[in-house]
């Protein structure tokens, strides 16, 4: 069977604008969460969010490219440009070889809302301008990345709620494993503007611990009261192993296994059984057992229900092995459509630098997390094999097993 490796990665998030900055934040356990004053005026229950600075693209991209990029597409461009640079893939290579793109994204609400506001003001759709349609579609990220980087392989967006980024990597693995592609750009993007998250806030999913924003996201902690939204984009370059070796590409890690499942029920409530099936399938696909896993990057978003169900599943599969677990969402907030990809980048950075980033604010366990080996502060640790979980609305589950290349 073909082996699939990661030969480049890029990140743009509330922890930093590149791999180096993000590595420092992860190691230092530095939260990127703060207050967005606009959310209060808009009617949010919670103004908390991961604070992500918009990149300046003038000078990097021509006008047409910039006009068509929505906020999350801008982040995706930054992360992908970094990933391609690190993979030693330039425009000349992209023009001469068939490279695909499979990227997770599940909304472009700001662009849609702004276009609607323009229509209401002018009663004339033409006043929305030329970029609105290309920014508004769910596939905005892949349609723009494929245009900017002149891609000619598989080209589509994966929409699977908060598991989008993880499924995108899993599907990239499948395309390469089946011999259909040699290289696929995979990742996930998430808009952070206040216009994009109001309806999520509306169902009471967000933490209202506003007095100390960096304490608000507290996965697995007894006193958690909801998630904090975040965003940005993360990209990994997936490549067939022999192809990467022949190209002399830097090899960061192997994507060894992909597992998935659907809970078959409630639209918002997670399932310990469903998530266990995805994890076990990923382990089986990688040909490894639970006891070999050195680290688990949990999905845990800091919601009361979600963390409890994941804790039950992790307890069932991993407690006998005392496997170290952390949720980097304690630092980033929930990066939603991007999270499954960003958490692969975060975990790869930990693997490359032999440490486990902390699960911030884990002060007291609850009845479900009490048996888990949750890491509250950064520890030095060699990681050869890790598992990353991502779950989403509608009961979609994805798990990835990543292996160090020796």
């Amino acid at each position, binding site marked *: 069977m073909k082996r699939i490796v990661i030969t480049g990665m890029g990140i743009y998030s509330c922890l930093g604008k590149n791999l180096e900055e993000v590595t420092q934040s992860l190691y230092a356990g530095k939260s990127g969460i703060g207050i967005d004053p606009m959310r209060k005026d808009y009617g949010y229950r919670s103004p908390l969010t991961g604070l992500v600075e918009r990149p300046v693209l003038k000078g990097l991209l021509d*006008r*047409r490219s910039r*006009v068509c990029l929505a906020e999350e597409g801008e982040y995706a461009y930054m992360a992908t440009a970094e990933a391609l640079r690190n993979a030693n893939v330039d425009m000349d290579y992209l023009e001469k070889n068939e490279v695909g793109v499979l990227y997770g994204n599940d909304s472009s609400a700001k662009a849609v809302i702004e276009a609607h506001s323009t229509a209401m003001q*002018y009663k004339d759709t*033409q*006043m929305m*301008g*030329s*970029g609105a349609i290309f920014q508004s579609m769910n596939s905005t990220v892949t349609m723009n990345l494929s245009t900017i980087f002149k891609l000619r392989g598989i080209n589509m967006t994966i929409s699977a709620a908060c598991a989008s980024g993880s499924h995108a990597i899993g599907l990239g693995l499948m395309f390469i494993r089946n011999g259909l592609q040699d290289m696929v750009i995979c990742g996930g993007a998430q808009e952070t503007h206040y216009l994009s998250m109001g309806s999520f806030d509306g169902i009471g999913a967000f933490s209202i611990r506003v007095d100390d924003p960096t304490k608000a996201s507290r996965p697995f902690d007894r006193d958690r009261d909801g998630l904090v939204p975040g965003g940005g984009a993360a990209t990994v370059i997936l490549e067939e192993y022999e192809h990467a070796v022949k190209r002399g590409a830097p090899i960061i890690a192997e994507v060894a296994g992909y597992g998935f499942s659907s809970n078959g029920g409630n639209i918002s409530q997670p399932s310990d059984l469903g998530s266990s099936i995805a994890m076990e399938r990923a382990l089986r696909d990688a040909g490894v057992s639970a006891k070999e896993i050195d680290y688990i990057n949990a999905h845990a978003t800091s919601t009361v229900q979600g963390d409890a169900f994941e804790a039950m599943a992790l307890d069932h599969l991993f407690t006998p092995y005392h496997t170290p677990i952390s949720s980097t969402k304690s630092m980033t907030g929930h990066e939603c459509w991007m999270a499954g990809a960003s958490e692969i980048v975060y975990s790869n950075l930990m693997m490359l630098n032999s440490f486990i980033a902390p699960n911030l604010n884990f002060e007291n366990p609850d009845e479900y997390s009490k048996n888990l080996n949750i890491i509250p502060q950064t520890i030095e640790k060699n990681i050869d094999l890790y598992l990353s979980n991502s779950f989403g609305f509608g009961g979609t589950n994805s798990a990835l097993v990543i292996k160090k290349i020796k």
Partner: protein
Amino acid sequence: MQREEVIKTVNHFLVEEIEIEEKLLKEEALLKDDLGIDSLDFVDIVVIVEKNFGFKIKPEEMKDVRTLGQFYDYITEKVK
């Protein structure tokens, strides 16, 4: 509004918003072939013209407008 004033406003948005090089902005320049204005750019120009000059460009009135000079004339005529 005088033609000179129209030229100043049009050139300003062509440089600042459509990002066309200033040295290309000559009366005889063809909008499509010399300035590279495509159909999507033109959508944005319609928006900018409405915001700057207060009228909406009608495509049928633009069919004989091929050069930048003719575009200045068209706008000058419309805002008279």
